[in-house]
């Protein structure tokens, strides 16, 4: 398993510290802080009945390292715990908040469960809910880039549970056979809702699945943002050089519930969670930054406070917005409205007071 950062923020023995400008490192950290804060706020809003649903990213912020290895023309297919990648790619924070409220400024037009969003202008693909579907799509997108000789790579995220899905199988296979520039990134957080890894697969390691497809595979500490960056950087290089896809198994842990609908105490031990809390990717990275002299405890506190306030403000604004208009129920089914949807729109307007 590739690892660069020790738990105390020092560099592991016999490994090389990647050379990354300080302001970038700080920016990664800032995004970690933002999404962790979003989780705290999001679940509260859900419990208050102010938003419909919340999905947690807590514990999986290491994924930002993968995103950091990509260029802005590269593409990302998230599963649904990769808000950090979206922010890193330039998604305005307020967009996520409007989306949480599914209001009239939600670029998804209030159509999705909060947390399931994509943005075309940052090449961050709108995710589905059926597990795994994006994996083979990512291979197709990468093929398209290869065909057009654009040199862009595609990173796709998915969970350990998703490795059982049909589209994992076809995605890995098509990616390998057509040698697409794809990073298949499995965020192995040990659980698929209540199903633990050993009931998901009898393989010794998920990374072994790469062998059966003839894909280069690597296992990495998913809570170590530097290692994540490093393996992704190597995979991106391979992809751009025409060497085909890489399968990355990132070992991590979902510290929170599966979603706001889940109660993990039904199926897993608190001690297991506590254990993984010690490996919290944010804490570890913070220690590194402090050790490196890029961040002080005071600055850190300031940062958390800043985003706490900012996000509260954004929530305040977003919560006051109206719902999307009734017309949005019918547009985007097709490029243009067919006769039957025109009829149905007229009908629904009679009953709606929007």
């Amino acid at each position: 398993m590739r690892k660069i950062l020790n738990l105390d923020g020092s560099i592991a023995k016999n490994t090389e510290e990647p050379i990354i400008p300080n302001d970038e490192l700080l920016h990664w950290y800032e995004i970690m802080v933002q999404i962790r804060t979003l989780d705290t706020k999001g679940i509260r809003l859900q419990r208050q009945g102010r938003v419909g649903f919340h999905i947690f990213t807590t514990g999986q912020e290491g994924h930002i390292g993968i995103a950091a290895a990509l260029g802005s023309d590269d593409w990302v297919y998230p599963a649904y715990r990769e808000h950090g990648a979206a922010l890193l790619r330039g998604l305005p924070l307020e967009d996520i908040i409007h989306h949480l409220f599914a209001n009239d400024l939600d670029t998804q037009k209030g159509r999705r469960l909060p947390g399931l969003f994509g943005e075309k202008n940052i090449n961050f693909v709108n995710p589905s809910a059926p597990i795994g579907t994006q994996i083979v799509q990512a291979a197709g997108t990468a093929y398209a880039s290869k065909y057009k000789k654009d040199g862009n790579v595609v990173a796709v995220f998915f969970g350990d549970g998703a490795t059982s899905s049909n589209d994992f199988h076809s995605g890995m296979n098509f990616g390998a056979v057509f040698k697409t520039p794809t990073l298949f990134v499995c965020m192995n957080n040990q659980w698929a809702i209540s199903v633990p890894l050993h009931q998901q697969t009898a393989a010794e390691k998920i990374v072994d699945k790469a062998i059966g497809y003839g894909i280069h595979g690597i296992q990495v500490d998913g809570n170590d943002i530097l290692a994540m960056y490093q393996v992704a950087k190597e995979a991106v290089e391979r992809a751009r050089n025409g060497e085909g896809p890489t399968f990355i198994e990132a070992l991590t842990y979902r510290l929170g519930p599966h979603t706001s609908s889940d109660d993990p105490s039904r199926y897993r031990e608190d001690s297991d969670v506590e254990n993984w809390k010690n490996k919290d990717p944010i804490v570890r990275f913070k220690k590194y930054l402090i050790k490196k002299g890029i961040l002080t405890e005071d600055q850190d506190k300031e940062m958390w406070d800043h985003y706490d306030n900012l996000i509260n403000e954004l929530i305040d604004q977003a919560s006051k917005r109206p719902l999307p208009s009734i017309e949005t129920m019918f547009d985007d089914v097709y490029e243009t409205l067919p006769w039957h949807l025109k009829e149905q729109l007229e009908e629904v307007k009679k009953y709606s007071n929007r």
Partner: protein
Amino acid sequence: MVELNIVDAIKYALEQEMDRDKDVIILGEDIGKNGGVFRATQGLYDKFGPERVLDTPLNESGIIGFAVGMSLYGIKAVPEIQFIDFIFPAFDQILSELAKFRYRSGGQFTCPVVIRSPYGGGVRGAHYHSQSPESLFAHTPGLKVVVPSNPYDAKGLLISAIRSNDPVIFMEPKRIYRAFKEEVPEDDYTVPLESAAITREGKDVTLISYGAMLHITMDAADLASEEGIDCEVIDLRTIYPLDIDTIEESVKKTGRVISVTEAPKTAGFGAELSALVAERWIEYMEAPIIRVAGYDVPFPFVLEHDYMPTPERVLDSIRYVYNY
């Protein structure tokens, strides 16, 4: 008698059938320790153990294919699909295998699997936790499609389904899983498949529905009765093959028919109901045959209550056909 809601009635049916017959096995995602995301299998893992309550890997075609294989060997497999929106990866196993095994083997191999799955909107589930694909299964010879609308039927129909020698798609109206309780016999009883119920007798307009929409329909019938329109409400319970006699009698009596379903209107199950009436009893019709249905768009999120049939929308259709 016990007071049960629908989801508990289902759990009871499963538990009693598993008690009765040790060859009944349930399987699915998160149905074990977690008891199912809707708790329909709560306690069954503790009672029957991991050999009869299988938490499976995340693969729906795997779940159904594995169940088909078990059932060929004489096991009564009752898989759960967590949301019916996630049944599509299993479509090939259902349409090509489950539905056709008896036929293609000349009656030699049968796989009477019962697929349980929560369906339908109204729970803020958006595109992928709200759909109602019954018409796809009703177009598939070899399958039976059952949709209960109340706790009594839920238990009795599920027991019938489990004892049936044909494969059954058992669609559970999750919107009303916990909406109300009813007296349900503690003992084992069955509600026959392929038989509809007259939930409300009336003489002016026939309303046909099932599942969660039955209640919207009943509410509409109440509103209509305040205006002096006397609706008969049919709860299909089994939508395929359906109970044609009950429909015939009602339709001939009222001469006015409205179906109420929540899936997109085009090629939805309401179309089949309209077509049956229009080809068999059109001369009795005194008004257009109306479908109140979901709109022809992917299931929305914040606008879901605008999307789904409401008592008001049904009422308007009742008025329309009554005054036609």
